[in-house]
């Protein structure tokens, strides 16, 4: 008995001592390793690594890399594309940015998503690229370039398209049940109850398990009810706005829809993902749901739903057939009568950008790679995916199957008085999880004070 107690105690003591001893040894070892690392530059030779968000739209990025690799510059320094599955992209990016494996060129959302990297001196200012190749700047819309600029330095080249969030719908389901496309909030609520009465259990598809799709409902209702200024104030540090009457009105509007069973019964939305099974796109394509509030990229997500195609092959699944049959409808988010927001206001992502690592070994090769972003062949690839690129020549390049969708979107963006950047992009990355949890909890419990206090705990960057 005595003996057993002793060995436990001694064993624990030995373990602790070993741990402490080795800790000291390692901090010495680590600091010496650091100097070795910086001396050997650590950047790979003969290639530039391009890292993008892995989703249904990677075929355009694959095209861009292949197009660059065919040029004489590309023969000298190859571009290598890698992807990280969407929901883990932002997190993984931050873990590698200061490591030796940091990508030379990487996908991001501009603004808040790169602020920390810029602050840590990890990003290359693109102003010198613009000087040696003015077309890299003049080919894009200036307002879009500015959304990825910090303190007069440009850090991002647009690489996908502007992504307003809109209401997608299943045309055949709406016409079958005699439901009009909603222009106002009350119309949407009555559509939902009509659909419910006709046996549609989940009138609105929502990937609640992924959490960020839920946020889109908040972004639009806050805009429509309170106008764009509320979130601008919150981002400027005025936490009291979350407790205002307008904030509570937006929350109770959401509650009205949730309570009507718009997103399904028994919190079914929490069992649905965006982009992976069981996905919200599945529900729209298969006629389980009539509506989905989503960013403009949903066009290609729906198109590739259930598709077994990989790489650059065209989508061949039920989603492709759904889109080809003209069953996919889209409309702007409805107006809320009595609210301060404009019906034409948009929420979403301004653009996606490529930013460049300051330590890159081949800045010239990177500059050449970025030229592809405004080439008309690449722009056409993006347009074919339903992405509204932000090059100045975009309107003249719109053609083909996606033309009506893109023209409508172009008009929408062009006349929008306000464009609310997604909250999880506007706040620093360290808050993004808290925002997602807060909105997910609100949908689950409809507890206003819990939501308000969670939002008041956020730490805006400014």
């Amino acid at each position: 008995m005595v003996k057993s107690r002793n060995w436990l105690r001694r064993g624990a003591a030995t373990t602790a001592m070993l741990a402490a001893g080795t800790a000291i040894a390692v901090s010495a070892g680590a600091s010496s390793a650091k100097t070795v690392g910086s001396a050997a530059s650590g950047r790979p030779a003969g290639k530039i690594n391009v890292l993008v968000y892995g989703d249904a739209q990677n075929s355009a990025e694959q095209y861009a890399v292949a197009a660059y690799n065919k040029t004489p510059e590309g023969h000298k320094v190859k571009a290598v594309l890698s992807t990280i599955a969407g929901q883990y992209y932002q997190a993984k990016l931050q873990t590698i940015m200061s490591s030796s494996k940091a990508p030379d060129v990487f996908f991001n959302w501009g603004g808040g998503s790169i602020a920390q990297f810029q602050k840590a001196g990890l990003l290359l200012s693109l102003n010198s690229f613009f000087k040696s190749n003015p077309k890299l700047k003049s080919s894009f819309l200036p307002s879009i370039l500015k959304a990825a600029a910090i303190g007069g330095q440009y850090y991002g080249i647009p690489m996908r398209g502007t992504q307003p969030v809109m209401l997608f719908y299943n045309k055949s389901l709406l016409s079958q049940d005699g439901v009009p496309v909603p222009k106002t909030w009350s119309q949407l609520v009555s559509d939902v109850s009509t659909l419910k009465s006709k046996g549609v259990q989940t009138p609105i598809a929502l990937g609640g398990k992924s959490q960020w799709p839920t946020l889109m409902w908040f972004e639009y209702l806050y805009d429509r009810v309170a106008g764009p200024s509320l979130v601008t104030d919150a981002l400027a540090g005025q936490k009291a706005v979350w407790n205002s009457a307008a904030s509570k009105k937006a929350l109770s509007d959401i509650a009205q829809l949730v309570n009507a069973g718009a997103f399904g019964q028994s919190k079914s939305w929490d069992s649905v993902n965006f982009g992976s099974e069981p996905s919200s796109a599945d529900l729209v394509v298969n006629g389980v749901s009539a509506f989905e509030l989503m960013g403009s990229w949903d066009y290609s997500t729906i198109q590739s739903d259930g598709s077994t195609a990989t790489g650059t092959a065209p989508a061949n699944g039920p989603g492709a057939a759904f889109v080809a049959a003209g069953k996919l409808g889209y409309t702007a988010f409805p107006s809320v009568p009595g609210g301060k927001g404009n019906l034409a206001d948009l929420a979403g992502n301004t653009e996606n950008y490529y930013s460049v690592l300051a330590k890159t070994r081949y800045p010239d090769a990177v500059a050449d790679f970025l030229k592809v972003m405004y080439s008309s062949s690449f722009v056409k690839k993006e347009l074919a995916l339903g992405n509204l690129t932000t090059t100045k020549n975009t309107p003249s390049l719109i053609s083909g199957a996606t033309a009506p969708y893109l023209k409508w979107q172009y008009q929408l963006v062009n006349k929008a008085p306000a464009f609310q950047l997604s909250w999880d992009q506007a706040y620093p990355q360290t808050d993004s999880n808290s925002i997602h949890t807060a909105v997910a909890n609100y949908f689950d419990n409809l507890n206003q004070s819990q939501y308000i206090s969670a939002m008041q705990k956020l730490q805006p960057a400014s």
Partner: protein
Amino acid sequence: MTMLTEDRGLARSKSSGGVKVGRPSFLWSLPAVVYFALFALLPLGVVAWLSFTKWNGIGAPHWIGTANWKSIFQDPVMIKSFKITAILTVLGVVTQTPVSMLIGVWAAGYQKNRAILSALYFVPLLMSAAAIAIVWFSLLNPYFGLPHELHFVFGGSLFNHGYLFSSQPAAIGVLTFVGMWQWTPFHTLIYQGGARAIPEVLYQAAAIDGAGRYRQFFHITLPQLRNTMVTSIVLMVVGGLTTFDSILILTQGGPGTATTSTSYYMYVQGFSDFNFGPASVIAVLLVVVTTLVSIALVRATGWDKMRSTQEGL
């Protein structure tokens, strides 16, 4: 529990007259010790240091004293995660122990059919936790999986009308069930080995006394399996306290934070929110708790008694 009785070997060699020649020196164990210390114990030291720093993955950590330690205990998600972890662990032990013990004892018989069945039980053991979680996640798809196909089973409120990831009880049920599916074969084997080691003479004596199968089970098998149970339960508890893969793949801690266990919360804090300081605090707590629990369980169930049952036979 052979692993805990190293003194046996020493005692035996002492009695053998202490031949000194050909005995390996301490140096023989050095490579293993150094290696283990470098990659398993050193990180424990580093994590203790990181728990007093602020670090977001960019740049270097800087010392901020006990701030992380103070704030973590005021974090409601953290407090809730303790409860969720405890529930998951207890449910794991109470569901896996009876099934694996009964099947293990049954499979300990040398009959041919039992041998074939036990070979089949093994299948989950060959699959990685990730593969198991992915397969079950696909099977439990409320729209196109089992809940849809077997609506008469899953349609009730017990299974949250088939939306298993939408309510806390159902999601915890899924995690417990998948854990059971995954781990029962392993524990069955442990019990099978334990049951085979019970001396046949005990059963023969009991049979002569007229004891039936159930009396034999409760009076011989169960007491004799005591050390096996301790091992199995310690492994279940340590495994339960640190369940991660299945939560990441099946529920992502949701709905909301309803299945955010302590170790999953550590992952979220560290690798999603980049608060490596608080994540390190959680890691230190995890090590302390798992170590204490293992020691406490071994001792509370009579570690020294265990040795005597073994040596007495």
